[in-house]
Each structure stands twice: as structure tokens, then as C-alpha cells.
């Protein structure tokens, strides 16, 4: 009896600890949300506002009298556009190339695999300046394409899909081939549906990564109408120091979609995590 009670107390303590730590971990998000809904005189002066106010959101979307509105909503749209396009492309190419490397055999496959490894581990930072110069030379400076084109492929995605497809028994593919299916049908009707857990993980991670990208987008786009929300927020960090409320609102716009996305897909995410770990 005493042992059982002791165990219950330990468990209770553990859950209290876990919850406290959890709250600590997500407290910045809560702070951001609360401050974005606080009346301006109270922003950053109190932890919990005395009353909720939409002043910051209204200002963010409509602008004040002495300031012209920055295109915050548009920036959010830009982020969504760029992140979605790039991630879809990365997932698709990842699946196609992953399939080719895992299932098919052809001359030069080895070379391509080694090349991909080289690419994956090559320090990207060295390529930053030359890629910028390349984009500029292509006449793409300050365009959406500048944010999208260089990132259409992810070696990590290829790696993940290749790994996964390798684990699928060869019989599955062979059976489909005997049924007369062409490669594309095999890929789209069999392999990709099988790879759902991988797709979920790859998509979630790549999307999140692209969503919060800062450096590249800051370098290649100058026009505020085309900037992503992350970049816009970074550029407004200093100048709008006197208007923290709307900045918090922008932060909420930037952060919460990803949080919601991950929470919605948390089941798939958790089941797929082991896949990442094993890589």
C-alpha cells in the first residue's frame, strides 16, 4: 500500500515537473501571443495584460497615420508561397531520385550517389556569395524566382526517400513490373503511397526550415512587397522598436502557422521521427 502511494506521489511529481518544463519551453510563444494582444501602454511592461486588445493587429494590417503600412499580410503570403512551392518540389524530386537510386540499377548510379554525398556534406556557406552573384547574373535579383529556384532540390530528402525505398522488399516492385506497370506508375501508385510516413516527416521538416529561412531571402530580395515575413520582421526589428506590439503580432503570424501544422500532424511526426534518428 505504501509503495503504491509512494509511486503515485512520484508520478505526480514527475508530471508536475514535466508540465512546468513544458510551460517553460513554450513560454516565449505564450509571451509573444499575450503581448500581441496587449494594449500598447502595457507591451513589455507586464507579463499578462490587464485587457485584451486588437490594437496591434489592426495597426499591423492597416498602418498608423504617421507610418505607411508595410505589407505584412503580403509578406506572410510570400512566405507561404515560397515555402510551399519549394517544399513540394523538394519532396517530389526527393521521391523520384530516391526511387531511382534505391530501386533501379543503371550505369553511373554509383557516381550519382557519391556526388549526392559530396553535395550533402559540402559546406554551403562557401556557396553563399557565388550563388548570389549567379542569381544576379541571371537577372533574377529581387524576384520570387531568386528565392525559389536555388532551393528546389534537397539532398536530405533524396537520402531519406532512398533509404526508405531500399527497405521495401524487391518483390513489390517486381510484382508490379510483371503486371506491366511502367516506372512512373510504380512510383506514383505504389512507392509514394507506401512512403507516407517519410513524406510527412520530410515535408514537415523541409517546410518548417524554408519557412524560417532568413539569410538567403534577406540577401536576394530587396523589395518589401516581395520579402518574406521573416525578412520583413528582421528588417523592422530596429526601426519599429518603438512599436513592439505590432511586431509581436507579426511574430505570431510568422510562428503560429508552423506550430499548428506540427501539432496537427504530431502523430505522423512522432511515428516518423525514428526514421530521422536512424539517418
Amino acid at each position: 500500500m505504501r509503495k503504491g502511494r509512494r509511486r503515485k506521489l512520484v508520478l505526480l511529481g514527475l508530471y508536475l515537473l514535466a508540465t512546468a518544463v513544458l510551460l517553460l519551453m513554450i513560454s516565449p510563444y505564450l509571451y509573444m501571443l499575450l503581448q500581441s494582444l496587449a494594449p500598447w501602454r502595457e507591451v513589455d511592461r507586464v507579463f499578462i495584460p490587464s485587457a485584451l486588445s486588437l490594437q496591434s493587429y489592426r495597426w499591423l494590417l492597416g498602418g498608423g497615420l504617421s507610418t505607411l503600412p508595410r505589407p505584412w499580410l503580403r509578406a506572410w503570403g510570400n512566405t507561404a508561397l515560397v515555402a510551399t512551392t519549394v517544399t513540394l518540389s523538394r519532396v517530389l524530386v526527393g521521391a523520384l531520385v530516391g526511387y531511382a537510386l534505391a530501386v533501379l540499377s543503371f550505369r553511373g548510379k554509383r557516381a550519382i550517389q557519391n556526388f549526392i554525398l559530396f553535395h550533402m556534406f559540402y559546406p554551403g556557406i562557401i556557396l553563399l556569395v557565388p550563388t548570389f552573384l549567379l542569381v544576379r547574373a541571371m537577372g533574377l535579383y529581387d524576384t520570387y524566382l531568386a528565392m525559389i529556384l536555388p532551393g528546389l532540390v534537397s539532398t536530405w530528402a533524396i537520402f531519406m526517400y532512398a533509404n526508405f525505398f531500399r527497405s521495401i522488399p524487391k518483390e513489390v516492385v517486381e510484382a508490379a513490373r510483371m503486371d506491366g506497370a511502367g516506372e512512373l506508375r510504380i512510383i506514383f501508385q505504389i512507392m509514394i503511397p507506401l512512403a507516407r510516413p517519410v513524406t510527412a516527416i520530410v515535408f514537415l521538416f523541409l517546410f518548417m526550415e524554408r519557412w524560417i529561412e532568413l539569410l538567403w531571402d534577406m540577401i536576394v530580395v530587396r523589395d518589401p512587397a516581395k520579402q518574406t515575413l521573416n525578412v520583413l520582421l528582421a528588417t523592422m526589428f530596429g526601426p519599429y522598436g518603438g512599436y513592439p506590439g505590432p511586431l509581436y503580432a507579426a511574430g505570431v503570424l510568422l510562428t503560429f502557422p508552423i506550430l499548428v501544422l506540427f501539432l496537427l500532424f504530431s502523430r505522423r511526426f512522432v511515428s516518423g521521427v525514428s526514421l530521422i534518428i536512424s539517418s
Partner: protein
Amino acid sequence: MRVLKAVFLGLLVLGLGAIAQVEITFWSAPNPSQEVFWRQMAEAYMATHPGVTITISPMPETPTSEAGILAAIAGGVAPTASENVFVGFGSELVKSKAIVPWNTFPEWEELVKARNISSTIKAWEFPDGNYYIIPMYVNAMLVAWRIDILRELGYERPPRTYSEVLALGERLKAKYPDKFLWLRSELEVPTWWQRWFDFFVFYYAASKGKPLITGNAITADDKAAVEVLRFFKTLRDKKLLITEPLAQGFEVGKTVMTVLGPWTFPWWKENYPELVYGKTFVLTPPPVPDWYPAEEPVYTFADAKGVVLYAQATAEQQKAMWDFIRWVLSDPEHDLAWVKVTGMLPARDDVGTNPLFTAYINEKEPALLPYAESITFAVPPIAHPQFVEIQERMGLECIYPVLTGELTPEKGWEAWKAAIKDLLK
């Protein structure tokens, strides 16, 4: 038949008009009121000049407007013209052959006369004899005081010398221990352009306007500079100067002194209507060292910027822009609109004398009077093309170590001079 002819002629005219349409772009400063001004001007101009399309957009302001302009030039997407360029940046642009002179246009002398800038323009001549920048405004920096709080402390007028300021500070802390004299969180950050609004202001006041750098030599008044640094350090030690980030200071009465440019007034009008000139705040030139004679005028720093024309634009675009700028600047009513919209004083010889301006200022913007009076004693920014490093090192090697006590004011000043030796070649 007649209808067809008319339609054909109409289409021809439209077509020709389309071909003859020149498109020019103008970047306004990252200050919303300035953008508003230029948009008004562009709309009015386009209404009477159908052959040209002018697009106004605000220039990027991060990391700095200068870097934004350079980035656009580097990316091949520079505008036809922009404002917000001061002599130092202008010399950097000239060095990279990125801008072209205005005075090579035939109507140059005409404009100088029409806008009444023959005296003002002298300071903007470049070493090669050309004028690459047409000044838009000259903003002398003044110091604002919360006279309402000063009155509570027994002061009828603001302090003039450093000792008087310190005495005020003591009384302030005695009555309001949580208040500060001056909030200047950027003083400890080496951002180059912030020096304009703290060190330069006090230095030019203490040194009677002695230039820091002339050509490639340091011509600063060392005694004055060290005095200013010592003043900052003393203020900070006595907790009168707060150098940490604080959201609101002067506007909410948490501090009683601040360095102010006239562009702040439109923003105050909207967000802090309780700040009324004469009642809540007053303006004075910067405080000076104790040994500064009381009868002599006090100099200050002037943020002075103007319009430049970019080399990347075609000859046709440049001509069209010249015509637009000429039109804007030749009419004093436009400069009056500038005052009304931006709250800043245009760079003209007659700002203090032309009744067009004085009437408006006296009636609607009395706070601008002290600014108008200070223009003669205002020193423009450093003209050296390496201005970024020069001013950055001032913060890094001199101001921060002095404020944190690492270096004495004398040593700090020497440190800065030593640190920029390699730049002045």
C-alpha cells in the same frame, strides 16, 4: 470613313504617346512623411506632364539606407534618382562611379537661382568641382527638455553648461529616483550613423563647430572631444544617462532630455499629442562645457541630405528626372509643402527670411523656429568616403571603452585616432 480616320489617329497618338512615355523611378527616404511628399509631387507633375511616368517607392532602410542603395546598385536595380544621400555617402558613390553630376544640365544655374540656394550649395561642391547632390534639407540637431518636469524641479529654463546639467540631474534623482536625465541606448552600440545623434552633436557644440576630419587629416579639437567623453561618462556613472534598451523615455517623462530632429514632430503629433512646444517641452542648442562663453552661439550637428542621380539610368531617364526635380524645387510653394508634410526645413538660403516660410512656422510650427535659427551654426556630416569605418571605430574603440571605464576619456580619444589612421590615406 471619318470615324475610322479619327480612330486611327487616336490610336496613332496613343501609340506614339506610349513610345514617348519615359518611366523613371524615385526612391524616397525611409521616412513615411517624405514618401508622402514625393508622391504628392509626382502626382501633380504627371497630371501636367503626360509623357512621363514617375514611380515613388521608399528605399530599404536595413541594414542602413546606404547599404540598401548599394545593394540595389550591385543588383543592377538602382532607381533613376533618390534622396537621402549625404556628402560622405555621395563621395563613396562618386568613387564607384555610381552617380552623375547635376550641374552638367543646362538649366543648373537657373535652378540655383530659383530655389535660392547659391549660398547653401557651396558646401555641397565635390573635389572635382561638380555638384552630385542637390540638398533637400538641413536638419540641425537640437536638445529637447521636458520643461514641465524641469519646472517641478524649480527650473524656469533648461541648463546650459555641463555643471548645470549635472546639478539638474541631482535634483531630478532626488525627487524622482526612477527617472533618468537622458536615454541613449545606442551610445554603446557602434552603429556608425548613431554617432551623428549623440557624440557629434555634443562635440560640435563644445568645439565651436571644428570639423573632425578635413580631407585626409584629423582636425578635431581634442580638448573639446575629451570633455564631451568625460561628460558622457559622468552622466552614466551618476545613473543620469541610461544606455540600455528602454522602450519609451522622453515621450512619457521617464527622461527629461533628448537629442531631437524635426522629423520627430509629425510622429509626436499622432502618438503623443500631450507634447506641446513651450508647455511640455522646449528646445535649446546642445549643452556646452563650463568654459564655453555664454554670449557665443552654440554649434551643432546637422543631418543634411539631398537628391542624387544614378549612372545606371539611361540618358533619357536622367533628363526626365532632371526636369521633374527642377519642377519640384523651383517653386517655393513646394518647399512649403515639404515643411508642412515632413516637419523639416528645406535647404534654402531664405528659410529664415522668406515670409512664405516664416509666416507658416510662426503660426503653425513654432517648434521649427529654433531649427531655422540654428542652420547657420550647423555642421554637416563627414565627407570622407570611409565614413562608415571612421564612425564605427569611434563607437568601438572610444565610446564603449570610455563608458565602461576601460579607458579614460583621453586614452579613448587617442584610441580612436589611432584606429582610423589606416583609413585616412
